[in-house]
């Protein structure tokens, strides 16, 4: 009987596959990415290397010594004190304590401060509180400390915001009105993000992490790129990271452009040049996990997309590798065997500058 290796499905469930099946899954995953993104598949050597990583006997694996990269953190301290049934573990603690735990106990290379809602818009009414927290944290922290939040353009639509919901307008075939609503929302979102970061930079933040950019589609990406551009003009020394929400920019509007490039339908390697053009320092590309596929398929697909983005990017690329992205299974407690294999593959095959 052929030897079988313990891998994972995209939802985290353990699955046993032979070497031949693992290679087959890797070839299918890389072919899918190549077909969608019109990019190169992994080479034969890279496929062999990925299979070798997936079949390593240890539960946890790691990069070769000397190949380590900075690991940056999103969601701020919410993974410690957040308690909404998501990735937070609900330990009562201040945000300063959370930041210092990441620096001194966990070995984080960078950290960020974030609002409990983790969207920019709700920060406005409590901006003084956020500035005070940033000043206190900066006094005590040594590693780079960002302010992190989601652009989350959906908050600007009814019933949460001032602009009519484009989904409702499109259902009524009011396509032009829906587009105008997205343009207004993007403009207001840009204004809010710039206003918030002006104040936090005056309070000592090292920079900003725009997390889950383009979650609301091309309008969200458009508004964020313009915020990056405005902040870069005003603050040449601000650290700016743009992390994406998904692998493909959804064309909710369909006609928005940045630097003459249509934003709808862009893959990671096409997003990277625009993020650099806007003035960011680091790009965080995303590839989504398919829960019905194996970790071999998902990781091969993710590594193929990210490798292409790393090759064309002029900026360091810190691949997003949270739950359900970057070859990581889609559940709140992703198995360590799958996380460490994905981590190693992204560094050693895709060549990322950080995670």
């Amino acid at each position: 009987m052929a030897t079988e290796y313990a891998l994972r499905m995209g939802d985290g469930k353990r699955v046993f596959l032979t070497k031949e099946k693992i290679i087959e899954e890797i070839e299918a995953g890389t072919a899918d990415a190549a077909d969608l993104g019109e990019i190169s598949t992994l080479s034969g050597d890279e496929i062999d290397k990925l299979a070798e990583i997936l079949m390593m006997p240890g539960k946890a694996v790691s990069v070769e010594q000397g190949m380590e990269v900075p690991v940056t953190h999103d969601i701020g301290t919410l993974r410690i004190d957040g308690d909404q049934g998501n990735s937070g573990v609900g330990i009562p603690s201040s945000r300063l304590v959370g930041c210092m735990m990441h620096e001194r106990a966990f070995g984080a290379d960078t950290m960020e401060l974030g609002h409990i809602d983790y969207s920019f818009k709700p920060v406005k009414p409590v901006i003084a509180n956020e500035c005070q927290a940033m000043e206190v944290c900066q006094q005590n922290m040594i590693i780079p400390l960002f302010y992190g939040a989601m652009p989350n353009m959906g908050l600007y639509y009814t019933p949460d915001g001032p602009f009519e919901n484009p989904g409702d307008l499109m259902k009524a075939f009011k396509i032009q009105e829906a587009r105008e609503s997205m343009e207004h929302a993007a403009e207001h979102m840009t204004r809010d993000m710039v206003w918030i970061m002006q104040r936090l930079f005056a309070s000592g933040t090292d920079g900003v992490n725009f997390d889950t950019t383009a979650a609301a589609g091309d309008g969200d990406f458009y508004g964020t790129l313009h915020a990056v551009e405005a902040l870069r003009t005003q603050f040449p020394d601000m650290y700016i990271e743009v992390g994406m929400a998904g692998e493909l920019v959804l064309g909710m509007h369909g006609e928005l452009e940045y630097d003459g490039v249509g934003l709808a339908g862009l893959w990671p390697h096409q997003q990277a040049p625009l993020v650099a053009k806007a003035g960011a320092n680091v790009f965080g590309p995303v590839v989504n996990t398919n829960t019905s596929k194996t970790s071999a398929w998902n990781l091969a697909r993710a590594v193929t997309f990210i490798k292409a983005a790393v090759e064309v990017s002029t900026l360091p690329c810190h691949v997003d590798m949270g739950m359900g992205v970057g070859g990581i299974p889609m559940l709140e407690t992703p198995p360590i065997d799958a996380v460490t294999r994905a981590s190693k593959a992204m560094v050693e095959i895709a060549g990322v500058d950080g995670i």
Partner: protein
Amino acid sequence: MPIAHIMASGMTGIRAAGDLVARMEFSKNMRIGEAKEYVAKKVGVDTMDLSDEHVMREIREELDIGVITSVAGAAKGIAAKMNIEKLLDVKINSCDLFRKQIA
């Protein structure tokens, strides 16, 4: 999960030199190889040593740029960052703010 990434691939922050390499990526858009070479040259070690806690612990104490444990009289927080500014020849925003506040 974040800790799994740190253990698998990370530079472990101020346990070694992860914060310094990250600063060069973010402040100068340096790719990983360039950032490691820049920091290694400034610190006076090989790039391999930047993730070596044994090497970097002693160097961090000597340079007074912060370590994870309490060392009486050693620079911490903003003071350690002011030493990092000089070491890496970069500006750090919180240090600028602090200088303005005490001027």
